[in-house]
């Protein structure tokens, strides 16, 4: 069982609201990732971090921002949510070792009205 947690699991909000999706892991992993996935579609890497104070944008451009102040915490923020941000957001972590196996959270499903 992976020790990586995402909250909230479901969120419905109105346009223009600021939201933060939380992701925490208790495995001491250096690397953390955010993926965005629409139903039945591929996962798109939108942000990743290789350690504290290190963040990079992924392959899919996103209006969201992330921070990595503590090893275990990697929150994602949308300053002004829009309907186009409606999606599932998946957080993952890895220990950065040879294998690079990812451990995923259960996801946060965001609906912006």
């Amino acid at each position: 069982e992976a020790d990586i947690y995402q909250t909230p699991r479901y969120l419905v909000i109105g346009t223009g609201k600021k939201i933060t999706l939380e992701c925490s892991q208790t495995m001491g992993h250096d690397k953390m990732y955010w993926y965005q996935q629409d139903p039945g579609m591929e996962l798109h890497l939108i942000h990743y971090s290789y350690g504290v104070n290190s963040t990079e944008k992924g392959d899919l451009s996103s209006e969201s921002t992330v921070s990595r102040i503590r090893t275990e915490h990697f929150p994602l923020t949308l300053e002004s949510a829009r309907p186009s941000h409606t999606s599932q957001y998946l957080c993952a972590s890895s220990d950065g070792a040879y294998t690079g196996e990812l451990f995923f959270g259960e996801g946060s499903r965001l609906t912006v009205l």
Partner: protein
Amino acid sequence: SQQGEEDPQALSIQEGENATMNCSYKTSINNLQWYRQNSGRGLVHLILIRSNEREKHSGRLRVTLDTSKKSSSLLITASRAADTASYFCAPSYNQGGKLIFGQGTELSVKP
């Protein structure tokens, strides 16, 4: 593109049958990983095969890797309704690097 491409996109079989899913990738890899995703949930790591391995087993799962063809296959034997999920391959091009996922194969196992 760094992602793997799964084939077929969808597969429907009866319980007890075997399910085979394929993955192709573009350039030399360090390893290739397979993941499973139940509807609306996060992905779960199933198995990893290194570039110098040709076959690997884990329970009812069998993964093969052909680096000359840049392809891998995942075989699930004696499938069960609980195997219904999407399956993704993820080629890893460097040590401990980020993984890019494709669209996956949606497997439906009918009781």
